[in-house]
């Protein structure tokens, strides 16, 4: 039976069929849906959202040490967080199969950088598999687990946005469980990486690499498709699909398992074609190696190293390869489109974060931001975020600026899930090292940006079980922060008053701004607002909230009743009371 599955759903299906019993991860676009699909097999796979990716990988590794098959999922930047266990797990190896799914985001649809995860495979000396559609995404999970057990190594399964979020047909199979019983077998020289045993681990990793190269040359997922021999293309992952569209006549060496590099296969292919082209997304990972083998090739001279590849981008590469400056446009239309208004994502109407950004706009402070919906607070008209680096940096960087003598007061802002992920250590630092920053946790009780995943503060798990809800106030006090206060971000006056006291204090403050994500709870806060056109003086103050329900631009603004969530911010800040509402009858 075939089903239409996204790459992420196919990976979850692959984990199910291959007998995975533990799957852990932290949400991050484009990887999030893997665990959301895996949890549809609750009787077969234990699934969890861990507080962060380091924890997730350690949980999966612990499972694999007992002989169980395990999966850890994360986005590319998540592997940076999990890099510490990864580098040593490459030495210890595993017993049960361990596949680490890492989803890259070329083109940065929803990411703060564009790193190429393949480097981690070479860095850690472990295999990396790269599916090019959903069927391969499913199949490569089983392949990765087999390789992992056979060579006692963690294996990376790398997807990209266009594999994770594309759907294609997948042949479904039955679930098979490994015969090996679960049970950790004591063997310190394998599982205890003290220098005495880490040195032989290092040697074993190198020996393993040689064996992996041998298998990479023979695996059916690395295969040559001979067509016209004038041009041969080495490609992998999703670019393979674009190559087949744009260079239908070319011979192709498709690498499903790019590292360790299958040198013999690459040589055989190169010898069989007149010209060799490497088509890979992001860095010249394969190309550099092909050149190191002494093989001449084209690659990043015609294929961009920045951003996503697409069929259109490859058409340009094809033109360049043929010595033309650019491929002709497919369609020419006489229509003006260069002046179309942009439509970036915005904080939703009624979003609790809006009240905080509005209030922060009243102070001359530096705001260190973090990863989540509230990063949208940087865009005009709110424009109230000054830095964004990585998860947790909103807390620690505020402290660094403060200690450097930044003349303005510094405020850090981050969400609840991000706080649990890596904000706590920064807060501990501020309390311990006598900082004076104000840290605002915008607590909407969910991981909103990635689609509402539960976390340690939500009171329930990924598998739907009830669990204690962690108190951010309690953590703040336990870290040593004396001034811990929670506020209602829809109350403009009180929010301003609390922020004023916190910001101008000589002590650190933890302010918890509490309001649910309306997309998550799917409710309105009040009746839709109405704008009285007679009273309105067109001062534009309400439009500075950047609320999508307030439509302006020409003349008197208009409240779109379909979009208005009735949060009441606009009527509180209107200087002439031109905004009111009709109380709704209780429904």
């Amino acid at each position: 039976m075939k089903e239409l599955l996204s790459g992420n759903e196919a990976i979850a299906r692959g984990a199910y069929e291959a007998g995975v019993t533990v799957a852990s991860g932290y949400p991050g676009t484009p990887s999030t849906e893997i665990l959301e699909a895996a949890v549809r097999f609750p009787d077969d796979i234990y699934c969890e959202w861990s507080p962060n990716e380091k924890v997730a990988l350690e949980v999966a590794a612990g499972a694999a040490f007992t002989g169980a098959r395990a999966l850890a999922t994360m986005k590319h930047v998540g592997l940076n967080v999990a890099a510490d266990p990864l580098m040593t797990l490459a030495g210890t190896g595993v017993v049960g199969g361990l596949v680490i799914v890492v989803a890259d985001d070329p083109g940065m649809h929803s990411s703060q950088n564009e790193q190429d995860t393949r480097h981690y495979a070479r860095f850690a000396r472990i295999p990396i598999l790269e599916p090019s559609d959903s069927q391969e995404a499913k199949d490569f999970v089983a392949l990765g687990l087999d390789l992992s057990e056979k060579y006692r190594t963690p294996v990376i399964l790398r997807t990209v946005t266009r594999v994770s979020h594309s759907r294609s047909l997948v042949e479904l199979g039955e679930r098979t469980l490994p015969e090996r019983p679960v049970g950790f077998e004591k063997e310190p020289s394998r599982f205890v990486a003290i220098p005495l045993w880490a040195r032989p681990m290092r040697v074993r990793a190198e020996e393993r690499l040689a064996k992996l190269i041998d298998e990479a040359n023979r695996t059916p997922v690395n295969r040559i498709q001979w067509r016209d021999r004038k041009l041969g293309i080495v490609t992998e992952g999703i670019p393979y699909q674009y190559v087949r569209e744009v260079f239908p006549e070319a011979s192709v060496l498709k690498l499903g398992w790019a590292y360790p590099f299958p040198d013999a296969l690459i040589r055989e292919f190169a010898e069989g074609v007149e010209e060799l082209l490497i088509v890979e997304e992001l860095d010249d990972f394969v190309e550099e190696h092909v050149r190191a083998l002494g093989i001449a090739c084209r690659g990043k001279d015609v294929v961009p190293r920045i951003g996503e590849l697409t069929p259109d981008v490859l058409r340009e590469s094809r033109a360049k390869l043929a010595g033309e400056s650019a491929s002709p446009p497919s369609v020419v239309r006489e229509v003006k489109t260069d002046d179309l208004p942009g439509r970036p994502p915005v904080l939703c109407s009624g979003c609790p974060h809006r009240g905080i950004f509005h209030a922060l706009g009243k102070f001359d402070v530096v705001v260190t931001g973090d990863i989540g919906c509230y990063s949208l607070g940087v865009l005009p008209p709110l424009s109230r975020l000054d830095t964004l680096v990585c998860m947790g940096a909103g807390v620690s960087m505020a402290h660094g600026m403060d200690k450097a003598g930044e003349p303005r007061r510094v405020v850090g802002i981050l969400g609840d899930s991000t706080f649990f992920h890596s904000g706590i250590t920064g807060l501990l630092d501020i309390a311990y090292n006598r900082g004076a920053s104000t840290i605002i946790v915008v607590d909407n009780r969910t991981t909103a940006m990635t689609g509402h995943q539960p976390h340690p503060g939500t009171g329930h798990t990924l598998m739907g079980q009830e669990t204690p809800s962690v108190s951010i106030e309690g953590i703040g006090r336990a870290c040593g922060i004396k001034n811990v206060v929670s506020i209602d971000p829809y109350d403009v006056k009180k929010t301003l008053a609390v922020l004023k006291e916190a910001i101008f204090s000589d002590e650190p403050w933890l302010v918890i701004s509490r309001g649910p994500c309306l997309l998550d709870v799917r409710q309105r806060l009040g009746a839709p607002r109405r704008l009285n056109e007679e009273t309105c003086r067109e001062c534009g103050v309400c439009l500075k909230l950047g609320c999508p329900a307030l439509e302006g631009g020409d003349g008197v603004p208009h409240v779109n009743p379909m979009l208005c969530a009735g949060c009441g911010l606009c009527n509180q800040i209107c200087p002439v009371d031109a905004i009111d509402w009709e109380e709704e009858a209780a429904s």
Partner: protein
Amino acid sequence: MSGEQADASAGVAENRSDTVSVVLAGVGGQGILLASEIVARAAMVAGFEVKTNEVHGMAQRGGSVIAQVRFGQEVFSPLVARGEASVLGALECVEALRQHEFLAADGLAVVSSQAIVPVTVSSGQAVYPDDVEARLRAAFSRLIYVDAVEKATELGNHRAANLVVLGAMSSSLDLPDEAWQEAIKRSVKPQHVEVNLKAFAEGRRCASGEQAE
């Protein structure tokens, strides 16, 4: 490269000719992803290989949303190339113009007449063009311009506007009626099947009316 390579580019177009590409555009929350799922399922029911693509993450936050579906005997890329789509469906005027490059010269554009003002306009950074309809008519030689929200509201649920647009799009997609019905039934919640089927049929009627003009 030699002239033979340049000739091969004709082969590229030929290779694509049996793959049908569809693009859907709109604003987060309008049901673009559901509409694309229905196209994909209908093609699947009709026995084709199918690939779709969409971008998640930001999609619910009021930003521009685009979804793509490709089907045929053998489909490689999930991404549609410029000038390749046989149908472009849009639930918002500016979003239709934004994605016009995907549509083939002889392709059909189905555009709902909604104008959703983005925050960039409300905050004075940009202007919403006041001649969108004229631009749409100039851009697309085959255009079905319809107030899908009004039609859907008349049928009982304004949220079914996406199915009105889809119904009109289906007039230019060679998939059997039963495949569409089956796809709709499988993709929407049971309580919404009836209104969605009606909205789809209404869209089809709009298309036949438009073509008769």
